[in-house]
Protein backbone atom coordinates (compact mmCIF):
# COMPACT_ATOMS: atom_id res chain seq x y z
CA UNK A 1 0.00 0.00 0.00
CA UNK A 2 0.98 3.59 -0.46
CA UNK A 3 0.86 6.06 2.39
CA UNK A 4 0.00 9.73 1.98
CA UNK A 5 2.18 11.39 4.58
CA UNK A 6 1.79 14.66 6.44
CA UNK A 7 4.47 16.53 4.49
CA UNK A 8 2.33 16.30 1.38
CA UNK A 9 -0.77 17.39 3.30
CA UNK A 10 0.77 20.64 4.55
CA UNK A 11 -1.31 23.81 4.08
CA UNK A 12 -4.30 21.88 2.68
CA UNK A 13 -7.60 21.79 4.48
CA UNK A 14 -7.99 18.02 4.58
CA UNK A 15 -11.65 17.14 5.07
CA UNK A 16 -12.66 13.66 6.23
CA UNK A 17 -16.35 13.55 5.35
CA UNK A 18 -17.02 10.22 6.97
CA UNK A 19 -20.79 10.53 6.61
CA UNK A 20 -20.53 10.74 2.84
CA UNK A 21 -17.44 8.54 2.58
CA UNK A 22 -15.24 11.05 0.86
CA UNK A 23 -12.12 13.01 1.61
CA UNK A 24 -11.40 16.49 0.29
CA UNK A 25 -8.38 18.68 -0.18
CA UNK A 26 -8.73 22.46 -0.12
CA UNK A 27 -5.65 24.42 -1.14
CA UNK A 28 -4.38 27.23 1.11
CA UNK A 29 -6.27 26.04 4.16
CA UNK A 30 -3.60 27.51 6.44
CA UNK A 31 -0.24 29.23 6.11
Amino acid at each position, binding site marked *: *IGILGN*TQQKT*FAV*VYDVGNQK*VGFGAKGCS
Partner: protein
Amino acid sequence: AVENGGGANWHVVSVSSLLPSAACGTAEKAASNSSFLSVVHRHGPCSPLLSRGSAPTHAEILDRDQERVKSIHRKHHGSSKTNPADASKGVSLPAYRGLSLGTGNYIVSVGLGTPARSFSVVFDTGSDLSWVQCKPCNNCYEQQDPLFDPAQSSTYSAVPCGARECQELGTQGCSEDNKCRYEVVYGDQSQTDGNLARDTLTLAPSEALTGFVFGCGDDDSGLFGKADGLVGLGRAKVSLASQAAAKYGAGFSYCLPSSSSATGYLSLGAAAPANAQFTSLLARRDTPSFYYVNLVGIKVAGRAIKIPSTVFNTAGTVIDSGTVITRLPDRAYAALRSAFAGYMGKYKKAPALSILDTCYDFTGYKTVQIPSVALVFQGGATVSLDFGGVLYLSRVSQACLAFASNGDDTS
Protein backbone atom coordinates in the same frame (compact mmCIF):
# COMPACT_ATOMS: atom_id res chain seq x y z
CA ALA B 1 8.02 33.93 -0.56
CA VAL B 2 6.36 31.57 -2.99
CA GLU B 3 5.46 33.17 -6.28
CA ASN B 4 3.53 31.80 -9.14
CA GLY B 5 6.26 33.08 -11.43
CA GLY B 6 6.35 30.02 -13.62
CA GLY B 7 2.62 29.54 -13.79
CA ALA B 8 0.73 26.86 -11.95
CA ASN B 9 3.27 24.26 -12.99
CA TRP B 10 6.20 25.73 -11.07
CA HIS B 11 7.07 26.99 -7.62
CA VAL B 12 9.39 30.00 -7.56
CA VAL B 13 10.70 30.36 -4.04
CA SER B 14 13.02 32.74 -2.21
CA VAL B 15 15.82 30.65 -0.73
CA SER B 16 16.00 32.88 2.35
CA SER B 17 12.45 31.87 3.23
CA LEU B 18 12.99 28.15 3.01
CA LEU B 19 13.91 27.38 6.60
CA PRO B 20 11.36 27.88 9.39
CA SER B 21 11.60 30.83 11.71
CA ALA B 22 12.99 30.29 15.20
CA ALA B 23 9.94 32.10 16.59
CA CYS B 24 6.32 31.07 16.49
CA GLY B 25 4.20 32.98 13.98
CA THR B 26 0.67 34.17 14.52
CA ALA B 27 -1.99 31.55 15.02
CA GLU B 28 -4.57 30.78 12.38
CA LYS B 29 -7.94 32.24 13.15
CA ALA B 30 -10.85 29.91 13.60
CA ALA B 31 -12.74 29.20 10.42
CA SER B 32 -15.82 28.16 12.29
CA ASN B 33 -17.32 28.81 15.68
CA SER B 34 -17.52 25.18 16.65
CA SER B 35 -14.81 22.80 17.76
CA PHE B 36 -11.58 24.28 16.57
CA LEU B 37 -8.19 23.36 17.95
CA SER B 38 -4.81 24.80 17.06
CA VAL B 39 -2.35 22.32 15.56
CA VAL B 40 1.39 22.80 15.93
CA HIS B 41 4.39 20.66 15.16
CA ARG B 42 5.65 18.69 18.13
CA HIS B 43 9.24 19.92 17.83
CA GLY B 44 8.73 23.47 16.53
CA PRO B 45 8.80 26.83 18.34
CA CYS B 46 4.99 26.85 18.57
CA SER B 47 4.91 23.57 20.48
CA PRO B 48 3.82 23.81 24.12
CA LEU B 49 6.18 20.94 24.86
CA LEU B 50 9.38 22.21 26.34
CA SER B 51 11.80 19.54 25.21
CA ARG B 52 12.90 21.39 22.13
CA GLY B 53 16.53 21.05 23.10
CA SER B 54 16.26 17.34 22.49
CA ALA B 55 14.40 17.59 19.20
CA PRO B 56 15.55 14.92 16.75
CA THR B 57 17.54 15.76 13.66
CA HIS B 58 15.92 15.58 10.25
CA ALA B 59 17.75 12.34 9.57
CA GLU B 60 16.42 10.88 12.83
CA ILE B 61 12.87 12.02 12.01
CA LEU B 62 13.07 10.31 8.63
CA ASP B 63 14.69 7.17 10.00
CA ARG B 64 11.93 6.82 12.58
CA ASP B 65 9.31 7.55 9.94
CA GLN B 66 10.29 4.26 8.39
CA GLU B 67 9.28 2.50 11.60
CA ARG B 68 5.78 3.96 11.35
CA VAL B 69 5.56 2.86 7.72
CA LYS B 70 6.64 -0.65 8.64
CA SER B 71 3.97 -0.84 11.30
CA ILE B 72 1.28 0.32 8.84
CA HIS B 73 2.40 -2.38 6.43
CA ARG B 74 2.38 -4.99 9.17
CA LYS B 75 -1.16 -4.11 10.14
CA HIS B 76 -2.28 -3.97 6.52
CA HIS B 77 -0.88 -7.40 5.79
CA GLY B 78 -2.31 -8.82 8.98
CA SER B 79 1.06 -10.09 10.02
CA SER B 80 1.25 -8.35 13.36
CA LYS B 81 0.83 -11.55 15.28
CA THR B 82 1.69 -11.32 18.87
CA ASN B 83 5.26 -12.02 19.74
CA PRO B 84 5.54 -12.42 23.48
CA ALA B 85 9.04 -11.02 23.35
CA ASP B 86 7.65 -7.80 21.93
CA ALA B 87 5.47 -7.02 24.89
CA SER B 88 7.70 -4.82 26.93
CA LYS B 89 5.62 -5.25 30.06
CA GLY B 90 5.70 -9.00 29.86
CA VAL B 91 2.04 -9.23 28.86
CA SER B 92 1.66 -12.17 26.53
CA LEU B 93 -1.39 -10.97 24.65
CA PRO B 94 -1.37 -7.26 23.84
CA ALA B 95 -4.97 -6.26 23.27
CA TYR B 96 -4.22 -3.91 20.46
CA ARG B 97 -1.12 -3.36 18.45
CA GLY B 98 -0.97 0.11 17.00
CA LEU B 99 1.31 2.22 14.92
CA SER B 100 4.74 3.47 15.64
CA LEU B 101 4.43 7.01 16.84
CA GLY B 102 7.26 8.49 14.81
CA THR B 103 8.50 11.94 15.53
CA GLY B 104 6.67 13.92 12.89
CA ASN B 105 3.59 14.23 15.02
CA TYR B 106 1.46 17.26 15.52
CA ILE B 107 0.14 18.50 18.85
CA VAL B 108 -3.23 19.90 19.93
CA SER B 109 -4.31 21.21 23.31
CA VAL B 110 -7.55 19.97 24.84
CA GLY B 111 -9.29 20.41 28.18
CA LEU B 112 -10.28 17.44 30.30
CA GLY B 113 -12.41 17.16 33.43
CA THR B 114 -14.49 19.61 35.44
CA PRO B 115 -13.08 22.13 35.97
CA ALA B 116 -11.21 21.62 32.73
CA ARG B 117 -7.45 21.31 32.78
CA SER B 118 -5.39 21.72 29.64
CA PHE B 119 -3.31 18.94 28.14
CA SER B 120 -1.05 18.87 25.09
CA VAL B 121 -1.62 15.66 23.17
CA VAL B 122 -0.40 14.13 19.94
CA PHE B 123 -3.13 13.92 17.32
CA ASP B 124 -3.19 10.79 15.21
CA THR B 125 -5.53 9.73 12.41
CA GLY B 126 -3.96 6.26 12.43
CA SER B 127 -5.12 5.13 15.87
CA ASP B 128 -8.35 5.25 17.82
CA LEU B 129 -8.15 5.43 21.60
CA SER B 130 -7.42 8.80 23.19
CA TRP B 131 -5.58 8.77 26.51
CA VAL B 132 -3.76 10.89 29.06
CA GLN B 133 -1.55 9.93 31.98
CA CYS B 134 -3.47 9.89 35.26
CA LYS B 135 -2.99 9.89 39.01
CA PRO B 136 -2.24 7.65 40.73
CA CYS B 137 0.41 6.39 38.38
CA ASN B 138 2.51 3.29 38.77
CA ASN B 139 4.87 3.99 35.91
CA CYS B 140 4.53 7.24 34.00
CA TYR B 141 7.06 9.02 31.84
CA GLU B 142 7.82 12.69 32.48
CA GLN B 143 5.29 14.88 30.72
CA GLN B 144 4.74 18.57 30.11
CA ASP B 145 1.88 19.19 32.51
CA PRO B 146 0.84 17.74 35.86
CA LEU B 147 -0.90 14.39 35.56
CA PHE B 148 -4.67 14.35 35.19
CA ASP B 149 -6.17 13.68 38.61
CA PRO B 150 -9.58 11.98 38.43
CA ALA B 151 -10.21 12.87 42.07
CA GLN B 152 -10.18 16.55 41.14
CA SER B 153 -12.80 16.23 38.42
CA SER B 154 -16.48 16.25 39.38
CA THR B 155 -17.50 14.61 36.09
CA TYR B 156 -15.02 11.71 36.00
CA SER B 157 -16.21 8.12 36.11
CA ALA B 158 -14.51 4.81 35.45
CA VAL B 159 -15.99 2.63 32.71
CA PRO B 160 -17.21 -0.62 34.30
CA CYS B 161 -16.17 -3.94 32.85
CA GLY B 162 -19.63 -4.74 31.55
CA ALA B 163 -19.95 -1.58 29.50
CA ARG B 164 -20.11 -1.80 25.71
CA GLU B 165 -16.98 0.33 25.33
CA CYS B 166 -15.03 -2.08 27.50
CA GLN B 167 -16.12 -5.08 25.44
CA GLU B 168 -15.38 -3.41 22.12
CA LEU B 169 -11.84 -2.49 23.04
CA GLY B 170 -10.90 -6.06 23.84
CA THR B 171 -9.23 -4.91 26.97
CA GLN B 172 -6.95 -6.36 29.54
CA GLY B 173 -9.76 -7.48 31.79
CA CYS B 174 -11.08 -6.15 35.03
CA SER B 175 -9.48 -4.71 38.11
CA GLU B 176 -10.68 -5.88 41.51
CA ASP B 177 -12.99 -2.87 41.78
CA ASN B 178 -14.68 -3.61 38.42
CA LYS B 179 -12.74 -1.02 36.45
CA CYS B 180 -12.14 -1.81 32.80
CA ARG B 181 -8.43 -2.14 32.05
CA TYR B 182 -7.16 -1.18 28.62
CA GLU B 183 -3.82 -1.57 26.90
CA VAL B 184 -2.44 -0.06 23.72
CA VAL B 185 0.90 -1.35 22.46
CA TYR B 186 2.21 0.76 19.63
CA GLY B 187 4.30 -0.61 16.81
CA ASP B 188 7.49 0.88 18.23
CA GLN B 189 6.79 -0.80 21.59
CA SER B 190 5.57 2.40 23.16
CA GLN B 191 2.78 1.39 25.46
CA THR B 192 -0.04 2.72 27.63
CA ASP B 193 -2.04 0.76 30.19
CA GLY B 194 -4.74 2.06 32.49
CA ASN B 195 -8.41 2.35 33.28
CA LEU B 196 -10.99 3.14 30.66
CA ALA B 197 -12.83 6.25 31.83
CA ARG B 198 -15.35 8.95 30.96
CA ASP B 199 -15.11 12.67 31.50
CA THR B 200 -15.87 15.95 29.83
CA LEU B 201 -13.56 16.87 26.96
CA THR B 202 -13.34 20.59 26.31
CA LEU B 203 -12.41 21.52 22.76
CA ALA B 204 -13.01 25.26 22.86
CA PRO B 205 -14.12 27.60 25.66
CA SER B 206 -17.79 26.92 25.05
CA GLU B 207 -17.53 23.56 23.35
CA ALA B 208 -17.44 20.37 25.35
CA LEU B 209 -18.15 16.69 24.82
CA THR B 210 -19.65 15.17 27.93
CA GLY B 211 -19.06 11.52 28.73
CA PHE B 212 -16.03 11.28 26.45
CA VAL B 213 -14.46 7.82 26.70
CA PHE B 214 -10.68 7.82 27.04
CA GLY B 215 -7.83 5.93 28.58
CA CYS B 216 -6.60 7.02 32.00
CA GLY B 217 -3.03 5.76 31.74
CA ASP B 218 -1.19 4.57 34.82
CA ASP B 219 1.57 2.51 33.24
CA ASP B 220 3.02 4.24 30.20
CA SER B 221 6.37 4.15 28.47
CA GLY B 222 7.95 4.77 25.12
CA LEU B 223 8.49 7.50 22.58
CA PHE B 224 5.87 9.97 23.70
CA GLY B 225 8.35 12.75 24.45
CA LYS B 226 6.75 15.12 26.91
CA ALA B 227 3.28 14.88 25.39
CA ASP B 228 0.52 14.50 27.96
CA GLY B 229 -1.13 11.81 25.88
CA LEU B 230 -2.72 11.22 22.51
CA VAL B 231 -5.99 11.90 20.76
CA GLY B 232 -7.04 9.20 18.29
CA LEU B 233 -8.97 10.17 15.17
CA GLY B 234 -9.21 6.73 13.52
CA ARG B 235 -12.40 5.10 12.29
CA ALA B 236 -13.32 3.03 15.35
CA LYS B 237 -16.24 3.92 17.61
CA VAL B 238 -13.98 4.95 20.45
CA SER B 239 -12.07 7.58 18.48
CA LEU B 240 -12.65 11.27 19.09
CA ALA B 241 -13.94 11.60 15.53
CA SER B 242 -16.60 8.95 16.14
CA GLN B 243 -17.56 10.11 19.61
CA ALA B 244 -17.98 13.68 18.38
CA ALA B 245 -20.03 12.69 15.32
CA ALA B 246 -23.39 12.96 17.05
CA LYS B 247 -22.69 16.55 17.99
CA TYR B 248 -20.68 17.87 15.07
CA GLY B 249 -21.46 15.45 12.26
CA ALA B 250 -19.55 12.46 10.96
CA GLY B 251 -16.17 13.81 10.03
CA PHE B 252 -13.41 16.22 10.83
CA SER B 253 -10.90 18.39 9.07
CA TYR B 254 -7.43 19.67 9.75
CA CYS B 255 -4.75 21.79 8.22
CA LEU B 256 -1.09 21.11 8.92
CA PRO B 257 1.04 24.27 8.80
CA SER B 258 3.73 24.80 6.19
CA SER B 259 6.50 25.02 8.75
CA SER B 260 7.14 24.17 12.37
CA SER B 261 6.91 27.86 13.25
CA ALA B 262 3.34 28.19 11.98
CA THR B 263 -0.01 27.03 13.32
CA GLY B 264 -2.75 24.99 11.70
CA TYR B 265 -6.05 23.67 12.98
CA LEU B 266 -8.11 20.61 13.75
CA SER B 267 -11.88 20.97 13.55
CA LEU B 268 -14.56 18.42 14.29
CA GLY B 269 -17.37 18.19 11.78
CA ALA B 270 -16.85 17.88 8.07
CA ALA B 271 -17.35 21.46 6.90
CA ALA B 272 -15.36 21.87 3.71
CA PRO B 273 -13.86 24.95 2.09
CA ALA B 274 -15.40 25.91 -1.24
CA ASN B 275 -12.27 24.99 -3.18
CA ALA B 276 -11.99 21.44 -1.82
CA GLN B 277 -11.66 18.61 -4.33
CA PHE B 278 -13.05 15.28 -3.18
CA THR B 279 -12.26 11.65 -3.73
CA SER B 280 -13.81 8.52 -2.26
CA LEU B 281 -12.88 7.59 1.28
CA LEU B 282 -12.39 3.85 1.47
CA ALA B 283 -12.31 1.35 4.32
CA ARG B 284 -10.99 -2.16 4.82
CA ARG B 285 -12.31 -4.62 7.34
CA ASP B 286 -8.89 -5.97 8.23
CA THR B 287 -7.53 -2.54 9.11
CA PRO B 288 -10.61 -0.75 10.40
CA SER B 289 -8.77 2.21 11.90
CA PHE B 290 -7.27 3.44 8.65
CA TYR B 291 -8.64 5.90 6.11
CA TYR B 292 -7.90 4.80 2.55
CA VAL B 293 -7.97 6.72 -0.72
CA ASN B 294 -7.13 5.65 -4.25
CA LEU B 295 -4.17 7.47 -5.75
CA VAL B 296 -4.22 6.88 -9.50
CA GLY B 297 -1.60 9.21 -10.99
CA ILE B 298 1.02 11.89 -10.53
CA LYS B 299 1.75 15.06 -12.51
CA VAL B 300 5.08 16.86 -12.56
CA ALA B 301 5.15 20.42 -13.91
CA GLY B 302 1.60 19.88 -15.09
CA ARG B 303 2.37 16.75 -17.11
CA ALA B 304 1.16 13.31 -16.18
CA ILE B 305 4.09 10.98 -15.74
CA LYS B 306 3.94 7.54 -17.25
CA ILE B 307 3.05 5.03 -14.59
CA PRO B 308 1.23 1.82 -15.53
CA SER B 309 -2.22 1.81 -13.95
CA THR B 310 -1.48 -1.58 -12.45
CA VAL B 311 1.17 0.02 -10.24
CA PHE B 312 -1.44 1.95 -8.28
CA ASN B 313 -4.09 -0.71 -8.69
CA THR B 314 -3.02 -2.53 -5.57
CA ALA B 315 -4.39 -2.12 -2.10
CA GLY B 316 -4.86 1.62 -2.16
CA THR B 317 -3.25 4.38 -0.15
CA VAL B 318 -3.61 5.15 3.54
CA ILE B 319 -3.89 8.83 4.39
CA ASP B 320 -2.13 9.36 7.70
CA SER B 321 -1.35 12.36 9.90
CA GLY B 322 1.52 10.56 11.60
CA THR B 323 3.65 9.46 8.65
CA VAL B 324 5.97 12.22 7.53
CA ILE B 325 6.91 11.23 3.99
CA THR B 326 4.52 9.84 1.36
CA ARG B 327 5.44 6.33 0.27
CA LEU B 328 4.80 5.31 -3.33
CA PRO B 329 4.98 1.98 -5.12
CA ASP B 330 8.53 1.59 -6.38
CA ARG B 331 7.78 2.05 -10.06
CA ALA B 332 5.68 5.14 -9.33
CA TYR B 333 8.46 6.61 -7.24
CA ALA B 334 11.07 5.85 -9.90
CA ALA B 335 8.96 7.61 -12.53
CA LEU B 336 8.39 10.60 -10.26
CA ARG B 337 12.07 10.86 -9.39
CA SER B 338 13.10 10.66 -13.02
CA ALA B 339 10.61 13.30 -14.15
CA PHE B 340 11.45 15.61 -11.27
CA ALA B 341 15.20 15.29 -11.77
CA GLY B 342 14.71 16.05 -15.45
CA TYR B 343 13.46 19.53 -14.52
CA MET B 344 16.13 20.12 -11.87
CA GLY B 345 19.23 19.67 -13.99
CA LYS B 346 20.55 23.18 -13.34
CA TYR B 347 20.94 22.54 -9.61
CA LYS B 348 23.89 20.80 -8.01
CA LYS B 349 23.07 17.42 -6.50
CA ALA B 350 23.38 16.95 -2.73
CA PRO B 351 23.84 13.81 -0.62
CA ALA B 352 20.84 11.69 0.25
CA LEU B 353 19.04 12.34 3.54
CA SER B 354 17.95 9.10 5.15
CA ILE B 355 15.14 7.70 2.97
CA LEU B 356 15.23 10.73 0.63
CA ASP B 357 17.57 10.02 -2.27
CA THR B 358 17.01 12.96 -4.64
CA CYS B 359 18.53 16.06 -3.06
CA TYR B 360 19.83 19.42 -4.28
CA ASP B 361 22.17 22.14 -3.05
CA PHE B 362 20.60 25.60 -3.33
CA THR B 363 23.63 27.42 -1.89
CA GLY B 364 24.25 30.66 -3.76
CA TYR B 365 20.74 31.01 -5.19
CA LYS B 366 18.42 33.85 -4.23
CA THR B 367 15.41 32.10 -5.70
CA VAL B 368 14.83 28.60 -6.97
CA GLN B 369 12.30 27.33 -9.45
CA ILE B 370 11.04 23.82 -8.97
CA PRO B 371 8.36 21.89 -10.83
CA SER B 372 4.98 21.43 -9.22
CA VAL B 373 3.90 17.96 -8.19
CA ALA B 374 0.22 17.05 -8.25
CA LEU B 375 -1.44 13.90 -6.97
CA VAL B 376 -4.39 12.60 -8.98
CA PHE B 377 -7.03 10.63 -7.12
CA GLN B 378 -9.84 8.37 -8.24
CA GLY B 379 -12.64 10.50 -9.61
CA GLY B 380 -10.28 13.11 -10.97
CA ALA B 381 -9.41 15.20 -7.92
CA THR B 382 -6.01 16.69 -8.73
CA VAL B 383 -4.15 18.10 -5.75
CA SER B 384 -1.18 20.30 -6.59
CA LEU B 385 1.06 20.13 -3.56
CA ASP B 386 2.33 23.09 -1.62
CA PHE B 387 6.03 23.80 -2.10
CA GLY B 388 6.65 22.26 1.30
CA GLY B 389 5.05 19.06 0.09
CA VAL B 390 7.46 18.78 -2.82
CA LEU B 391 10.80 19.46 -1.15
CA TYR B 392 11.93 18.52 2.36
CA LEU B 393 14.62 20.88 3.58
CA SER B 394 17.12 19.98 6.22
CA ARG B 395 19.22 22.99 5.20
CA VAL B 396 19.67 25.16 2.11
CA SER B 397 22.43 22.88 0.89
CA GLN B 398 20.25 19.78 1.15
CA ALA B 399 16.73 20.10 -0.24
CA CYS B 400 15.26 16.72 -1.09
CA LEU B 401 12.32 15.46 -3.11
CA ALA B 402 9.89 14.67 -0.30
CA PHE B 403 8.77 11.23 -1.46
CA ALA B 404 10.11 7.74 -0.92
CA SER B 405 9.64 4.30 -2.36
CA ASN B 406 7.64 1.61 -0.63
CA GLY B 407 10.11 -0.95 -1.89
CA ASP B 408 9.41 -3.73 -4.33
CA ASP B 409 5.91 -3.19 -5.77
CA THR B 410 5.84 -6.60 -7.39
CA SER B 411 5.71 -8.53 -4.15
